[in-house]
């Protein structure tokens, strides 16, 4: 029933090319960024095109206009509802870049949003989400209403707010129960996984940092080749004759290579650095899920403890045949239901996370494999281009050499 979730796609199609039309599919693409508004209030809107045969959807195709904060809304909703699942990451808010809105920034963001929505659409659980359906189909007014309600009233992300609320709640319980230490799972495998995730983030962040620097180096080398080319051409004009021509051709080649380097810099950014950044974000998303699991565990423990106390209290009341028994019994039953719910929630998160980590590792191996392939392809293409360009000069330099040498000999006699 669920689709091939291991496919990471850039253009939006999460459908295997030769599937019969009866196979369920949900394919989304984020395209055509358009800058709207002015100055401080400027923002980018995107066309989100959905193609599907899911019965829950209004029709086979839908096009809506969405902006960044709509994606944020969706992500927050998914995070709230699908605890235990590693929600795909979205690109960060960028207060500085927003004002500048360079073409590069817009393209990076569009690509990241496209990847996000496709990951959601190809995840066997997340693709069932009602909020996803809203996001992909609702008109802009509805979307705006939902978005401003969720993010306007609560200045923080709902997740953050819940975290604070829970922290307070657990603090109170801790005091009541006479505990000060936070309750944590003692699961060695899980500990190992947590440690792995936290360390992984550090390693990845470093790799991403160097990847970004490498993009800059390509641009700098490109610029220096351009400047060098110009200078050499001027020198050639001064020298004149065969040598001058050689200088001039070298300068021209140098300038041409500068363009290749700028192109490669962009390719490196979009196909290597961005996937690495995406990897970092994905790990950060897992950390958020880890935090949710910790909350769920705490709640499950607290309720279990509270329930025990209530049980003891109830027994006491029953023994003394107090008229408060009815009330206490009622409270106890309510608490029991809540506790069982909390336990189920927690256990569900554990189960989901175990599945998710497998999916995550496989996904990342695929994503990185593609990224490495693109990186190597780009570097090989660049190096070959450089070799070819310079190689084409050699016969001309040889010819010039014989001219210069013969003219020198003539003048010496």
């Amino acid at each position, binding site marked *: 029933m669920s689709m091939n979730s291991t496919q990471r796609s850039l253009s939006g199609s999460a459908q295997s090319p030769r599937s019969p039309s009866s196979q369920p599919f949900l394919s989304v693409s984020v395209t055509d960024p358009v800058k709207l508004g002015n100055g401080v209030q400027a923002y980018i809107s995107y066309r989100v095109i959905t193609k599907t045969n899911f019965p829950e959807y209004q029709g086979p195709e839908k096009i809506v206009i969405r902006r960044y904060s709509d994606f944020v809304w969706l992500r927050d909703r998914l995070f709230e509802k699908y605890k235990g699942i590693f929600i795909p990451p979205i690109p960060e808010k960028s207060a500085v870049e927003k004002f500048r809105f360079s073409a590069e920034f817009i393209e990076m963001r569009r690509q990241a949003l496209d990847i996000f929505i496709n990951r959601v659409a190809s995840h066997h659980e997340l693709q069932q989400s009602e909020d996803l359906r809203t996001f992909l189909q609702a008109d802009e007014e509805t979307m705006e209403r939902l978005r401003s309600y969720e993010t306007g009233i609560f200045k923080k992300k709902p997740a953050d707010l819940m975290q604070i609320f829970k922290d307070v709640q657990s603090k109170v319980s801790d005091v009541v129960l006479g505990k000060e230490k936070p309750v944590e799972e003692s699961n060695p495998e899980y500990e190992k996984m947590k440690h792995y995730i936290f360390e992984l983030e550090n390693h990845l962040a470093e790799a991403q940092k160097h*990847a970004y620097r490498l993009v800059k180096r390509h641009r700098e*080398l490109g610029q220096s080749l351009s400047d060098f080319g110009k200078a050499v051409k001027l020198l050639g004009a001064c020298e004149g004759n065969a040598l001058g021509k050689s200088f001039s051709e070298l300068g021209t080649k140098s300038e041409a290579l500068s363009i290749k380097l700028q192109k490669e810099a962009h390719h490196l950014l979009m196909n290597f650095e961005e996937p690495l950044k995406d990897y970092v974000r994905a790990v950060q998303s897992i950390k958020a899920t880890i935090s949710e699991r910790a909350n769920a565990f705490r709640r499950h423990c607290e309720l279990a403890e509270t329930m025990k106390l209530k049980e003891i209290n109830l027994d006491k009341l029953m023994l003394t045949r107090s008229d408060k028994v009815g009330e206490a019994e009622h409270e106890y039953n309510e608490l029991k239901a809540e506790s069982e719910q909390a336990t189920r929630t927690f256990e569900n998160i554990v189960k989901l996370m175990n599945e998710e980590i497998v999916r995550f590792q496989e996904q990342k191996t695929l994503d990185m*494999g593609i990224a*490495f392939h693109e990186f190597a392809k780009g570097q090989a293409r660049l*190096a070959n281009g450089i070799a070819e360009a310079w190689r084409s000069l050699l016969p001309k330099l040889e010819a010039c050499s014989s001219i210069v040498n013969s003219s*020198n000999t003539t003048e*010496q006699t």
Partner: protein
Amino acid sequence: MRLFKELKQSMANDWGGSKPPAAEEDKEFLEKKDKINELEQQIINASQQAETLVKAQQDMGETMGELGLAFIKLTKFENEQAVFSSQRVRAADMKGLATAAVKASRFYRELNAQTVKHLDTLHEYLGLMLSVHGAFSDRSSSLLTVQTLLSELSSLQSRAEKLEAASSKIFGGDKSRLRKLEELKETIRATEDAKNVAIREYERIKENNRTELERFDQERRADFLNMLKGFVVGQVGYAEKIANVWTKVVEETNGYANDST
């Protein structure tokens, strides 16, 4: 420039007679001088851009190496922590990338050492320009000497003419004036000799300059050409090596290419 102008001026004012044959040559010389100055400017410019290029190449190699190291750390980490086989596959892929990046980094470093060596020719010629300027100033000062002597000679001769005219008016001759005239004629002869020496010296320096400049031009052309060849050959060689390194990774990761759109 000023000297030349002064010479022309003094020629026009004091002589009215034959002009020195230097006029045409001087113009040619001045053109040559201008060209040399222009060349120097362009060499300075090219030499500066060469430095920037070298720095950019160096930085590229360094960052490539750092990227490689970061991935080596990641490889080690994934291998140590691996729970799933997908992690081991990823670690292997990372190792391939890391190895290539480190190799490429080394090649960039080697290429850069060569680039520095070749493009250094530009810096060398900046130094050699000094000797060219030296030769030019030798010629200028020698010309100044000639001009000074010429004007001295001219003023001595006019003094002699005046003295001769004055003494011929006195009947029986003017012993003191005649004696002065004799002394003056002596001085004139000495100055004539000095002038001739100075002119010969000037001509010698002019000829020296010409042959030196010719030699400088020839050597420079040959050296610059070698610089270009060396630079280009180095770039080709290392670009090929770097391309090979990455082609290997392309082949190793080809499996992923089929999965992407």
